[in-house]
């Protein structure tokens, strides 16, 4: 392993002085730091540090979402994997290209966006569309704000909303019926059986409900990763137990969807679907576990997380019931992302009082 490390550092010291190749030095250094964690000492107190770092932090999300990703291959064939690969490659190029031009450090945040984005797309999204979406998401959703840690919106959702508005037909009119039984999708590349609507769409148009058991296990049409509420829930619980995400956001989000749909069903029985159906159908579970909990674009104080979750729930139920879109998770998370700093500010004002400006 020493040889590989030495080789990488030699390449990087060679490219550093090269007139054209110097631009890729950053890429090589990044590869080296990903493969070999530099054994540096803490320079300032505390000298004892936690072993957690951003790479592992991000990787934990990838581990948590892996079962849902594997299930997407099971349900929709190897094409699902192709979508993930395209997302990683196209998004990776966009990320690296942008950071090289801006002469900034390449960060690990993309590790998560790259896998979450394809999982919130319909299974028959053309591969080029996946590429366009992730590039838009990475650049307009994250890099223009300053990169990982500075983005206001969840980059994966920015890419998704761009595709939804630009290619409405591909994004919402055709869905695939998932394969089940035996090896299912592991035996084939893609699925051809087309249906016109997801359970939420069916409810919006016809008012009929899909069986809860199917919704829970995953035998229903929908986006790649959201088919099986069970696997998404399992990944979310893993992340909460590992403390990578805060339990307050999913609990308050799902809780408020439950409460407000129960209330709404009583007030507007024809428009609002029953609570359990709401929880298991569509992208709610996926959004609550992986999208709303994105630490950068969600609030950071505990109290604000509760408020954020409750507002998310109200928004989601309202959009599902009263708007032209059958699904409201994406829009409500993006909208509430905007309010996250405001919620934090309100909590800080309550906790510490308003900012005093003595020289005003």
């Amino acid at each position, binding site marked *: 392993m020493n040889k590989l490390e030495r080789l990488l550092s030699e390449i990087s010291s060679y490219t550093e002085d090269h007139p054209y190749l110097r631009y890729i030095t950053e890429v090589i250094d990044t590869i080296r730091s990903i493969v070999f964690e530099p054994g540096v*000492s803490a320079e300032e107190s505390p000298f004892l540090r936690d072993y957690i770092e951003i790479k592992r932090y991000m990787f934990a999300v990838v581990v948590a979402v892996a079962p849902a990703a594997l299930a997407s291959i099971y349900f929709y064939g190897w094409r699902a994997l192709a979508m993930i690969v395209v997302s990683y490659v196209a998004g990776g190029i966009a990320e690296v290209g942008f950071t090289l031009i801006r002469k900034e450090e390449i960060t690990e945040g993309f590790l998560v966006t790259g896998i979450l984005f394809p999982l919130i797309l319909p299974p028959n999204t053309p591969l080029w569309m996946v590429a366009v979406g992730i590039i838009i998401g990475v650049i307009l959703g994250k890099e223009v704000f300053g990169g990982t840690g500075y983005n206001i919106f969840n980059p994966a959702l920015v890419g998704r909303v761009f595709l939804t508005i630009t290619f409405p037909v591909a994004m919402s009119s055709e869905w695939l019926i998932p394969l089940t039984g035996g090896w299912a999708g592991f035996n084939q590349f893609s699925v051809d059986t087309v249906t016109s609507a997801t359970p939420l769409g069916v409810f919006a148009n016809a008012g009929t409900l899909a069986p809860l058991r199917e919704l829970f296990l995953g035998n229903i049409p929908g986006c790649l990763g959201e088919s099986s509420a069970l696997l998404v829930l399992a990944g979310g619980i893993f992340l909460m137990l*590992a403390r990578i995400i805060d339990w307050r956001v999913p609990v308050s989000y799902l809780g408020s969807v439950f409460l407000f749909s129960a209330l709404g069903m009583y007030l507007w029985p024809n428009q609002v679907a029953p609570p359990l159906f709401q929880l298991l159908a569509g992208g709610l579970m996926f959004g609550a576990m992986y999208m709303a909990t994105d630490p950068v674009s969600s609030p950071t104080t505990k109290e604000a997380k509760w408020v954020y979750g409750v507002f998310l729930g109200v928004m989601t139920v309202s959009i599902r019931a009263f708007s032209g879109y059958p699904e409201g998770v994406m829009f409500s998370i993006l909208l509430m992302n905007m309010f996250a700093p405001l919620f934090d500010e309100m909590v800080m004002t309550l906790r510490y009082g308003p900012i005093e400006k003595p020289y005003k």
Partner: protein
Amino acid sequence: MKIFGLDLQQYETENKPNLRVRDELETVTVPTKGGYGSSLSPSVEIGDRVEAGEIIARNDDSISTPALASLAGEIIEIVELDGYHEETGDKFDAKVQGIKIKVSPEQSIKGSGIEWEKEKPKNLRELLYLAGLTSFGQTGVPTEFNSSLFSPAKVEHLLVNGVRTEPFVHHLVDFSEEFASYKTGLEILARTFPKSQIHFVMDEKTQENLKELSSSQRIKVHSAKNESYMSKSKMLARKILGREKLDEGGYLLDHGLLALPEIFPLATYRAVVEGVPYIRRRISLSGPATEDSIIETPIGAPVKYAIGEDVKDNVDALTIKGSPLSGQKLEDSEMPVSKDMGSLVQLTKPQGSQFLAWLQPGLRKNSYTNAFFSALAPHKKKVADSGLHGEERPCVYCGWCSDVCPVDILPFQILKTHEHEMIDEVNRLQPQRCVDCGLCSYVCPSKLPLSDTVKSAKQEQSDESHNYVKYEENEKGLISVITEEEKGRGEESE
């Protein structure tokens, strides 16, 4: 053991360190400042002979505590101790002189104890001053001399901090053997500050072994839970005084609390009952790169000598003054042992780069998160080194720093606002609450300098916040202005 929460008690360390006395020295270099106070000019000259415990630097006009010869011998040199930094963060000049003494072979300590039960509190305080003990605490121990910014009348609560909950920091007092003297020391302190309430705080673990010490009217015994931040006097002060008071900022004595280290009652006992001034220091030495021990050595011995050859062979180690969570790097091991050097920790430096460290299971890696397999084996001893374990990255707002913070501040917000010099916003976030526990930087996955930033935000703010005490600077140094009325108050109770 904790499944949810930060457990810093699980590092590999020996539980019972051995006491090692190190006093075969040829020379000692006694610093003219140790703990709180200005640095002094020597009152002896080269060639003078001094006895152990004799005052070799004293200035009653500036805020200071006399420096004492730690061993008998001949003064051979007066040196500038460059880079001799103190952890107190006080306002005094960092330039410190060292008085080098060639140690003579025959050693004896003159002086005898007094009957403290009959002594006036004022005389006891004078004795502490002359024994070199009054530079302890955040702003020195108040006496009728200029040992502190405050007057003795200001001491309403006296807190002895016997909490050792930070990793790799041992108790300096062996409570099983020295308990009687220690208890007497506490009683002497109760008499020395007759109007104050004495609080003795221990960690839960020690309290179990110390059942016979119970609260009396003058001496209240408290126990603190086993969290690393509980070893901070300011944290204990928040419990005793209430948090609202301390959130205002200022020194502890602004609020009437004098916090003293664990060793103080024992040193008081030695000085008062046995007549031995404070010329020897006990240091806890611990860490994976060394053998755990309690070292007893004369003040002024080089740190290197005090530690001895105990750094394990072929280990690249980092030596830290204080605890690994809030201490400072020991830059020069030739520096003399100072009066207030309580613990040294030697951590091994990381051994080169690690292949795919972020993918390893980490069965013995400690973490606030449960993202390592160590979460499944909470009883397994954890490894410790001085590694950063990652690289600095932008903040991702995970919020862990504020989750672990024992005083409810938002370190990442302070970092963000401080870096843009938004002073009003920084001050609004109340950095003065910080107790310097270092946990925010410990847990940060982006390896950001959180605790350092909060510390400097606090420092910048503190200049405005403690206007309770008047002090002024003149040619003699920093002088506190204590009114005659205040001086008188300490005597009322006799």
